[in-house]
């Protein structure tokens, strides 16, 4: 009976989200700018929560508590620093400038913006291709998370592939009908929902174990090293490289980067920026501390399972545990549908239209986008069945891949002397090198290249430095091409 109840809550929640998407669809116009950017009309609350919900995926909701459970609550500091502070600053540095340029010239994607500035279809396609490449493991991560979530909730009655398939079906359905307005609306609902539910969950569990002091005391008794800052997994190298690669990576995620274009006004951007650190902390504090406290609780976490559902099954009633899982699935869905939506705009606008069929009708483009989404999500679903790593590992790979795009893009935004060749070299070389490192751990015949060196320093950090050096160095050595137009990125005095 409780099984039916749990599944009912999860599916019911997904259906409500879908209904909201359909309402948004009815008020939508049929232009690409409306479908992908909601006609650049998003206000503060919705912008804040849509960015928030998009950031918060399986990586945060399950991966985070799992890591805090295994290695200590320092994960809160790592994520708080990178998301709450560093990403916020980058939001201003990259996002505000992109918003100014985007609303002047009508850009919808990052590749389109760069391609237009440098007069290069090749660069446009390169940026889109690289983005889609790293988007793949991140979509897969959501499916893995959903699969694991339902296994945990139903004690294995719903198999791993069943949960992954359920969320795949929902996200395809969702993206193909709703567009950004629907995504943004449901994100707001889901962001508010997740925030309240995680606090209720913390309160519930804490009252059962005797309060914050008792929970921390039990945690320290079981794992004394959790109390002191640093140590174990958390070397300075790990903390710094994780914070930098993820924060820079996040700004280049298609679904986040495209959010930079959607604000209604500068005031919207400013308010969102100032509220951001507090909002991030409000979610991370209870979620990750629950994971860390779980180390001191008399619970058994099976191999490959997530900590959060196990804790809730122990201390909260079944319907509430189901509600939290529904919230987490919602988080994954809001990440995935945004990713797929942005991914489809990269695919149709930056690859299909310029390279395959420039004269395709709007109607045809819309169909290509939907077929692309379905295909991409299905392939990611198939790949997720092989479970190629933990949630944190898979996520980290994708973040680092995107992080390598960030410095060349910042260079292009702020340094008019940047040339097309500089951009191509600064993007292509580090990407190829990083891809080699990642593939070497998957392909059995070649020796595995190390991902970290000297006590936790990520090689992606070195490759980020290389991307900046190449962009600047090659730009200085080459002349700007005739097709390039630096004034496209000028924002002064209009």
């Amino acid at each position: 009976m409780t099984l039916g109840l749990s599944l009912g809550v999860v599916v019911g929640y997904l259906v409500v989200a879908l209904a909201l998407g359909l309402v948004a669809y009815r008020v939508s116009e049929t232009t690409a700018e409306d479908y992908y950017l909601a006609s650049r009309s998003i206000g503060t609350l919705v912008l804040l929560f849509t960015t928030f919900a998009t950031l918060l995926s399986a990586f945060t909701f399950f991966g985070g508590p799992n890591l805090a459970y295994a290695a200590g609550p320092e994960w809160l500091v790592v994520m708080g620093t990178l998301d709450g502070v560093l990403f916020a600053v980058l939001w201003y540095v990259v996002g505000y400038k992109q918003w100014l340029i985007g609303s002047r010239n009508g850009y919808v994607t990052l590749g389109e913006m760069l391609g237009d500035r440098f007069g290069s279809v090749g660069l446009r396609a390169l940026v889109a291709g690289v983005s889609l490449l790293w988007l793949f493991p991140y979509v897969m991560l959501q499916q893995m998370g959903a699969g694991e979530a339902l296994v945990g909730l139903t004690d294995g009655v719903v198999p791993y592939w069943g949960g992954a398939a359920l969320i795949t079906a929902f996200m395809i359905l969702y993206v193909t009908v709703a567009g950004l307005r629907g995504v943004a609306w449901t994100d707001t609902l889901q962001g508010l929902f997740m925030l309240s539910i995680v606090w209720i969950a913390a309160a519930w569990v804490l009252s059962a174990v005797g309060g914050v002091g008792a929970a921390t005391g039990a945690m320290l008794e079981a794992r004394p090293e959790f109390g002191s800052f640093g140590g174990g997994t958390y070397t300075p190298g790990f903390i710094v490289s994780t914070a930098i690669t993820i924060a820079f990576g996040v700004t280049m995620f298609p679904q986040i980067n495209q959010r930079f274009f959607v604000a209604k006004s500068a005031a919207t951007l400013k308010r969102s920026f100032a509220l951001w650190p507090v909002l991030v902390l409000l979610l991370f504090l209870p979620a990750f501390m629950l994971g860390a406290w779980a180390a001191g609780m008399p619970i058994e976490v099976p191999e490959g399972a997530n900590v959060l559902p196990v804790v809730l099954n122990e201390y909260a009633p079944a319907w509430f545990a189901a509600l939290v899982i529904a919230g987490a699935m919602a988080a994954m869905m809001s990440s995935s549908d945004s990713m797929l939506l942005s991914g489809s705009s990269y695919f149709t606008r930056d690859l299909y239209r310029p390279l395959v069929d420039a004269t395709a009708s709007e109607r045809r483009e819309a169909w290509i986008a939907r077929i692309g989404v379905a295909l991409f999500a299905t392939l990611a679903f198939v790949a997720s069945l092989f479970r190629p790593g933990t949630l944190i590992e898979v996520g980290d790979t994708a973040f680092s891949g995107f992080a390598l795009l960030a410095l060349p893009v910042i260079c292009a935004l702020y340094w008019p002397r940047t040339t097309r060749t500089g951009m191509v070299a600064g993007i292509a070389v580090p990407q190829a090198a990083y891809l080699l490192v990642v593939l070497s751990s998957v392909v059995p015949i070649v020796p595995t290249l190390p991902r970290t060196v000297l006590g936790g320093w990520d090689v992606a950090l070195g490759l980020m430095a290389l991307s900046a050096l190449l962009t600047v160095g090659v730009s200085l050595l080459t002349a700007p091409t005739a097709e390039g137009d630096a004034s496209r990125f000028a924002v002064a005095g209009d």
Partner: protein
Amino acid sequence: MTRSRSDLVWIPTFATLVAFAVPWPLWGVDRVVAGLPVWIWWHVAWLGLCATLFSLFVRSGAWERGMGRERAAAAESGGDRR
């Protein structure tokens, strides 16, 4: 001109805000205060400080001056531009 020079103070301010969001001075400290390790309180307080300074920054108009958009910003402050 003095205004835009004092705007540059924001650059080291942001660098400090990012760098010390990680409680480096408390490395290895294991004191528990009010139920949580003391370095978690540092982080919580620091993010509060960030939110405060961020809102001061957006109100100061330093960014608009840096981008050469004072006039556009003044026009916008009357209401949303679009």
